[in-house]
């Protein structure tokens, strides 16, 4: 929790860097590696300056192979280190999938608790940055479906720092998805002290009475823009930021829907088999009789994210969120 408040204006890149700095300083077992994370500080500069400060043994560039980056982290972690590894973009993490699902996620289970894999697998995700193919997708649901890992997605610099500190100190493997679209777009005061935010607890950003909106990552800011439109229309929105999609905070979602009777979930990922579908079912199980309207979702399509000239078709606008909010309230 937040201690002596020495506050500083940070964006998410600064906040993550600060979390690494604190953990590298506090625990000699923490090592950071991946493609271009050492000398250059990563393509988004999230690890900038850390190699200079902590040396090439602790912050280093690895050869270009995602499976090997995660696979070697499994070995390091079983032997006692706490590796923080970077997948340069989530769209390039698939070669590592086998190491994540077959080993990082199940080493403790397979060894009946003898070995654990305290690994943080970082991956920038999501669209809206006019990028090349494979650089814009939001495939968090595939990790949420995977027994044995936690999946964390921050929406602000403050949360990014506190959640990253929790992730590094967790003895479970954490998939840490970073909404690259808001890496630098949001600035806020963040404590320079060490603080942590528990993984698995959602954050009620603003309370309201007419409808619950659940989002995470870069979609939180889009919902906040939609809330301006909702306010003009006289609709009171309760905004929940999930912070992690697994564990998912059923209680906070259920309590909110019991109060509002309506819910819209906003995700940037393909529509089918996603986090929004899961939340709809949680609401069905926990608050079915409180519902005044069918649970709704605003998501991407079951398509490939188009290249930049077509990406606006896919991306979720505040208007589209408001459209769904209003429809659900008027149902």
């Amino acid at each position, binding site marked *: 929790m937040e201690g002596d408040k020495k506050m500083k204006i940070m964006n998410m890149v600064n906040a993550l860097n600060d979390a690494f700095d604190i953990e590298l300083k506090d625990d000699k077992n923490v090592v950071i590696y991946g493609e271009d994370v050492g000398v250059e500080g990563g393509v988004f500069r999230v690890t900038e300056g850390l190699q200079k400060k902590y040396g090439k043994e602790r912050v280093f560039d690895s050869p270009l*192979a995602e*499976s090997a980056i995660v696979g070697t982290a499994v070995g390091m972690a*079983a*032997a006692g280190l706490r*590796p923080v590894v970077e997948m340069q973009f989530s769209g390039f993490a698939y070669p590592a999938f086998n190491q994540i699902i077959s080993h990082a996620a199940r080493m*403790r289970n397979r060894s009946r608790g003898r*070995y654990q894999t305290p690994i943080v697998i970082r991956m920038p995700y999501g669209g809206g940055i006019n990028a090349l193919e494979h650089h814009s997708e939001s495939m968090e649901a595939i990790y949420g479906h995977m027994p044995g890992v936690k999946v964390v997605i921050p929406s602000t610099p403050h949360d990014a720092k506190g959640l990253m500190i929790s992730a590094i100190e967790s003895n479970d493997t954490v998939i840490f998805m970073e909404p690259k679209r808001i890496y630098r777009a949001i600035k806020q005061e963040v404590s320079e002290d060490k603080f942590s935010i528990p993984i698995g607890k959602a954050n009620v950003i603003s309370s309201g009475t007419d409808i619950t909106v659940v989002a995470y990552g870069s979609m939180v800011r889009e919902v906040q823009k939609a809330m301006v439109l909702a306010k003009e229309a006289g609709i009171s929105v309760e905004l929940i930021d999930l912070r992690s999609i697994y*564990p998912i905070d059923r209680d906070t979602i259920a309590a909110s829907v019991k109060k509002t009777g309506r819910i819209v979930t906003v995700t940037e990922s393909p529509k089918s088999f996603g986090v929004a579908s899961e939340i709809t079912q949680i609401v069905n199980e926990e608050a079915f009789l409180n519902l005044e309207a069918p649970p709704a979702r605003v998501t991407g399509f079951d398509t490939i994210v188009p290249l930049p000239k077509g990406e606006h078709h896919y991306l979720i606008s505040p208007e589209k969120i408001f459209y769904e909010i209003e429809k659900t309230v008027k149902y």
Partner: protein
Amino acid sequence: MFKEYDPIEDKMFNIIDDKGVVVNKKWMPKLSDEQIVKAYKDMLFARTADLQIVSYQRQGRIYTYPPNYGQEAIAGAVGAIMRDEDWLVPAFREMGAYLAKGVTLKEIFLYFMGYEDGSLFKGAKNILPMSVPIASQYLHAAGIGYEIKYNKKDQVVYAFVGDGGTSEGDFHEALNFAGVWNVPVVFIVQNNQYGISTPFKVQTASKNIAIKSVAYGIEGIKVDGNDYFAMYAAVENVTKLAKEGKGPFLIEAVTYRKGAHTTSDDPTKYRTKEEEEDWDKKDPLDRLRAFLIAKKLWTVKEEEKLVSQYKKEVDRQFEEAENYPAYPLDDAFQFLYEEMPDDLKKQKFEHEKFLQWKETRK
């Protein structure tokens, strides 16, 4: 050693011939008579257990099992050199190395009877559980190697894979990372000529596996894996070099899987009797036994007596495993996370409610 047995020239390192006669005195390891007899006994124990397990499986008392039959010298040599503090990163066909680490047969039985508890390895230090996704464990070995170097520990990692595994990307990525990091890992490939039914020639166009080390800037050697002394000398040599910080090494151990891939496999579909008989002449136990008998360190009678003792011991541990307590529901849930997430608690609770309901219907 690496220059003398250059894999580019497809040379194979061996010390005894098929009759157990030393043909390469220069590299004969300095082992006492007792050490050699112990090595033979360990291999004999592993073989006895292995053959017993196949018969248990035929009786329906154990599930699918991958036999070691014919490959015992490789794990035997590694087991004789590996210390408690060294790491073993196994695949699933090196029983002798598991046993040398302190894994019990009972644990091996439990695993193949369907208990994760068989991977607990209570009495064994620094050994990862069996890895089924082929070659994926090679990367873990490279990562452990990094930890050893990072913390300046006096340890070596021994990692196993089969010839089929050398086609996997993880095999190559592991050699590459370990080479770049210069970590103390001994990568051992048991080239038993088949990946299930697929012969070595269909696996790679390389003339051997050891040659693949060249591309990664590390040393590699092709060894007669059915020659205990050659395996011992090679592993001893690379272990010494790895401890001196000379990096990772690749050992190709040429052998033959005399049994099936697993108890579900039928080798008559893809290989000939003649081929099997040719390899029978190179059996690792036959060769070491011939050496021992020539030196008057062993008799057939002694072996018969020992095998019947071993069989009793194998049966005893098997029966212990058969009487293992039932698998509780908790065990399916409790090891996924350090603290069980609420969702899992709820799923377990709901299933327990169903079980209670089921009870009331009886």
